């Protein structure tokens, strides 16, 4: 066990996998000599050489497209897109190529690639450094979509992603890189070094894709969350005193419906929380699945607490971010209903 930030845990996962398997290569903008703008790949080039970890030209489609070609050859590329906000130029390669290669070739070729990218707001990054585009990936059959919320999971999930034989979108909530952030932006954040979830097992281990984690057991209402929102939900629960069960999804696709259904059937109430915009956000899918499977157990309408349907503004960041107050209000409403 070592104490690690989420950045270190992510780096450690790549380090472990590069050490274990020569076919793992890492590249992306600024990831080589410098080690990434968030330093997630720091030291990997020095350790594994320029053949295995290198700087890429600023062309996200090229980064993913080249990774697909490498994967077709037999490698396992783990590439970085500098911010999730910059993944759109690669969207065609991801949707039309990586996600469908196994299907359209009947398994003749596959694309075991991992695409890492920092996601979410809370750092005054404005609309081009704050987005949460997970739903444009969860709509794509053939992809897996992962969002870790702490260093231990981050490492185990990234190892699973790199080992996975299908393409994985790995979204890193950048507001959690250095410590769990609960939305109280005016209060200091506990660094991971002082937080129990900063305790990361050494060496190889994995956290399976498709398994959610109940981070708090509760009887009255189920909160479905992932990434930063897990801590926002915790804060809201503490502040309202409502006995909520919190589910940290960890993996959005495939989804751990079993855990969700068991919880909602128990509590009879549900609040879905994410930072992305409301309309056609992943919350719509979560709400739908719960409604479809737990309808007769529901005692109140399921609520969604999400970012507003606007681009992510710079100065109004905290009016945009769905913080504990909004989650608390939803919890109270759901309990009253």
């Amino acid at each position, binding site marked *: 066990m070592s104490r690690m930030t989420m950045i270190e845990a992510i780096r450690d996962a790549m380090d472990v996998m590069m050490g274990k398997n020569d076919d793992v290569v890492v590249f992306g903008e600024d990831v080589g000599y410098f080690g990434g703008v968030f330093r997630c790949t720091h030291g990997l080039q020095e350790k594994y050489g320029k053949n295995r970890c290198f700087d890429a030209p600023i062309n996200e*489609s090229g980064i993913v497209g080249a990774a697909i070609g*490498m994967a077709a*050859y037999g490698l396992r590329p783990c590439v970085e897109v500098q911010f999730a906000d910059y993944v759109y130029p690669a969207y*065609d390669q991801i949707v039309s190529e990586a996600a469908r*290669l196994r299907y*359209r*070739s*009947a398994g003749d070729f596959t694309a075991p690639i991992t695409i890492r990218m920092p996601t979410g707001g809370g750092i005054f990054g404005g609309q081009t450094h704050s987005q949460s585009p997970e739903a444009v990936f969860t709509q794509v059959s053939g992809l897996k979509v992962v969002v870790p919320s702490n260093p231990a999971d981050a490492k185990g999930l990234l190892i699973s992603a790199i080992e996975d034989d*299908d393409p994985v979108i790995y979204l890193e909530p950048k507001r959690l890189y250095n410590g769990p952030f609960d939305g109280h932006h005016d209060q200091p954040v506990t660094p991971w070094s002082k937080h129990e979830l900063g305790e990361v097992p050494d060496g190889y281990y994995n956290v399976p894709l498709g398994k959610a984690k109940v981070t708090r057991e509760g009887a009255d209402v189920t909160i479905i969350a992932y990434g930063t929102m897990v801590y926002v939900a915790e804060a809201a629960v503490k502040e309202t005193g409502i006995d909520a069960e919190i589910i940290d999804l960890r993996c959005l696709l*495939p989804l751990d419906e079993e855990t969700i259904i068991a919880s909602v059937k128990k509590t009879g109430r549900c609040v879905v929380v994410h930072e992305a915009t409301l309309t056609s956000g992943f919350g719509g899918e979560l709400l739908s699945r719960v409604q479809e499977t737990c309808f007769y157990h529901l005692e109140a309408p399921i609520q969604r607490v999400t970012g507003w349907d606007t681009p992510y503004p710079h100065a109004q960041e905290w009016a945009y971010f769905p913080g504990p107050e909004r989650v608390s209000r939803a919890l109270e409403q759901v309990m009253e209903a």
Partner: protein
Amino acid sequence: MSEKKRLHLHVPEPEFRPGDTPDFSNVTIPKAGSVRRPDVDVSPEEIRDLAYSIIRVLNRDGDAVGPWADLLSDDELIRGLRHMMTLRAFDARMMMAQRQGKTSFYMQHLGEEAVSTAFQCALEKGDMNFPTYRQAGLLLAQDYPMVKMMNQIYSNEEDPLKGRQLPIMYSEKEYGFFSISGNLGTQYIQAVGWAMASAIKNDTKIAAGWIGDGSTAESDFHAALVFASTYKAPVILNVVNNQWAISTFQGIAKGGSGTFAARGHGFGIPALRVDGNDYLAVYAVAKWAAERARLNLGPTMIEYVTYRAGGHSTSDDPAAYRPKEESDAWPLGDPIERLKLHLISKGIWSEERQLQTEAEIKDTVLAAQKEAESHGTLHSGGSPSTRDMFEDVYKEMPPHLRRQRQEAGI
């Protein structure tokens, strides 16, 4: 400041539209044998002119001339002719099958048979092509079983792609033939990535990317050239300039650059332009580029100057946008006729053998077709299982797909 002039938009137009009489006499075609053959380690700057010329080997009399000639044995040449004839016969049958409703769609190679068949002969086992939909010759030049191709075209019960893909979107790893996408341009950068992987692993295999004249406009073309140029990937970047992109003439993609090959110049990538209807020239140039790649000298761009003599696909009728006579007027001739003439002038072939071979190939194609049809065609006979629709989305079927399959009752 010069006096203010009113601007206007320039929209390039092809020289001939339906109703016009096509006349290509103003197109300069260099004489066969006239373009030099540089060493493979030449610096790109020294051969800039080769991107504006056309490398040709076969002259009008059917003789192979100049520095790019004499690379193939008599046997290889006869095999080449057979490959092209097979591709043409295969196309003819499948065009007809489509008209008969046995499949939904087909795309033929008429007039472009030399490009893919000759190119493949310059590769080695283990190398990988990233083809578009108009390079089936890469498979046929390896004597790939036609019946398997037809099974795919018919989406029948033996379709290796299980009915999932549009006809002709083959995938054959064993034959160095990457799964065809249908999305234009995407595979070009993938070819570069594959080649980079080979270099990363200190392997000896090389890759070849394929793209059409129209599709060079796609942005992934740029991605491919940037990556290939930066990492000196062992890749051959093929541009098949068949003059048309559906109804759009090549000028819309090419703009003000004299040729497509010239695109390589902005990247320091050596670029050659070759007569795509000259089997010997295509082979020679491909071989040159392959050698460069194998010697770790990096990428080469090749533009094949050819002509799409048929429609874009079975959904297209070119009479709507170009003169019917244009394909006959096209100055580079027919690749099969030209190679046949060469073999005859070499004294190793005759009109009789040609007819005989044609008949023989027709029989083989027909036999394959018969066999394929015994496994079904798109709307009748054996077809892939609907269960297969849910397979291979992921390596292991996740619960939600299992549930959906159940719901589908299959």
